């Protein structure tokens, strides 16, 4: 698989605050990435660096083989409409769609028209007067219709209702099937997009803490539930990511796949096994203080 973007030791500091800390990550062509993490984890900063909007403090970025900064032959192949994208004063959505084709060589005007109708976007209302959801729709439509070889969606669903969100997921998948490209989707509505993602990059406090194929990730952790004593016996000696206890019942999330004998053992102890969703996994991995607190409570 061809790598389209990669970073090495990428660091971004703002004064004493480190937004990204020595990030090594790569993106290959024709793949849908989920860039997951909590607010302020560094998702937007990473995307702004990959699109040459910010300057790195340290480290390297290569997109299509060279730094994206001030290289129009690279930037021409990227599309990144930020969640907080500012539009020129007095601009209407119609202005955006008038100008966007000159910036994206694969722009599909017909597709854009269809999306505008799908999202019921008012074309002649000032962008300042749009609702949050309509504003997000502008970004989503530009991102999809641009068909840029590398397209970044930064929290694209903000303010979108459930219908519009699913419309976005559907159109994204349909178009992706016809025009494979690299898509990086930053989001914290993880469950909704879990089935869309082919690869997950989890970022927390400026560090990459998970960079894995989504298929491998699913089922890489298991929750065991049942009587406290039985649960304790079963998880003894394993790495426990989270514990929960209600009365005499307990549940514990353990890292790693279970073998067949282990599953049999769990059944013998009367324990229930459940796969951990991507969202739960992310919460466990990035919950930090919260997770540690729960563990302490459970141990006490």
């Amino acid at each position, binding site marked *: 698989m061809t790598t389209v973007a990669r970073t090495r030791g990428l660091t971004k500091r703002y004064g004493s605050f480190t937004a990204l800390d020595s990030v090594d990550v790569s993106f290959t062509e*024709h793949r849908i990435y989920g860039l997951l993490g909590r607010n302020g984890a560094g998702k937007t900063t990473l995307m702004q660096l990959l699109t040459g909007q910010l300057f790195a403090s340290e480290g390297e970025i290569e997109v299509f083989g060279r730094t994206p900064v001030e290289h*129009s*032959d690279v930037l021409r192949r990227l599309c990144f409409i930020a969640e907080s994208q500012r539009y020129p004063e007095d601009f209407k959505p119609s202005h955006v769609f008038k100008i966007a084709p000159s910036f994206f060589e694969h722009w599909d005007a017909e597709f854009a028209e269809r999306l505008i109708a799908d999202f019921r976007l008012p074309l002649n209302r000032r962008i300042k007067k749009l609702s949050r959801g309509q504003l997000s729709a502008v970004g989503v439509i530009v991102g999809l219709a641009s068909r840029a070889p590398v397209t970044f969606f930064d929290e694209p669903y903000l303010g979108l209702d459930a219908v519009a969100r699913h419309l976005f997921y559907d159109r994204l998948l349909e178009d992706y099937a016809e025009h494979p490209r690299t898509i990086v989707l930053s989001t914290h509505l993880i469950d909704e997009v879990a089935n869309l993602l082919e690869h997950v990059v989890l970022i927390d406090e400026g560090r990459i803490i998970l960079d894995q194929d989504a298929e491998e990730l699913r089922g890489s952790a298991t929750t065991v539930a049942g009587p406290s004593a039985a649960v304790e016996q079963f998880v003894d000696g394993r790495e426990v990511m989270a514990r929960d206890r209600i009365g005499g019942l307990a549940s514990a999330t353990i890292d790693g796949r279970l073998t067949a004998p282990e599953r049999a053992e769990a059944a013998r102890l009367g324990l229930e096994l459940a796969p951990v969703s991507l969202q739960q996994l992310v919460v466990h991995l990035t919950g930090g203080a919260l997770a540690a607190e729960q563990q302490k409570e459970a141990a006490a």
Partner: protein
Amino acid sequence: MTAVPISAAVVREDRFRFSDVARVVKLHFVNPSIYFGVPWLILGGAWALSVLITLIIRGASPAVTAEDMEGMRNSWAVISPQWYLVVVGVQAVAFTFNFALGLGSTRRDYWLGTSLVFLVVAAEMATGIALLVQLEQATGGWWLGAHMFDALWFGIDGFWVDWFSAFALQLFVLFVGAAATTIYLRWRMAGMLVSGAGLLLLVVGGIAIATFTETWPEIFAWLGEIGIVGVFTLVLGLAVVSAALGYVVIRRATPR
């Protein structure tokens, strides 16, 4: 339909394509009234006011002669859109920089495109004003002896001097506004305060030196010597300096 993968191999193309600059021009002109509508609206308003004042003067005392009306040459009405155009210079950059970068423009292409817009606007304004000076002179001040365009330094040395001075002035106000905005984009408020204070210090320092060394008469004599063309060549030089400064500053500016 068969899958059509979008090419993603390592690419090497010309770093400079004129279309990359042209699309920035297009971005600015998506809303053309900012550049081509409002300045003429302001000039039109000033013109109506000038004509009205002339009518009032004429009506109040029928004995007023054409020489008396020469006083209107001191009217600043002809440069009334300049304040607005400083704001246009500021807004042009403040409102479109983030968006242009979001669409994948380089800072260099963005600044080149913006500069091209300013050149076009300055040329258009200069042509309009220089023509109106001619028209005002030909009609004897709109048949009333009014002076609106044929005022200040305009209408003295002919069409091309009028054109050149208006062009230089337009370009100067647009680039000063735009360059100041690049400083804001890059260093925010702190940058504005430091550069503003620095500029003020420079100007006040210059005035102080000229005052203490009593060189004002020489300075005015020199300005008189270089004439209208000379003075506006200096203004054009300041416009070029602002443009160059803006370019250097914006190359490292980041959107918010």
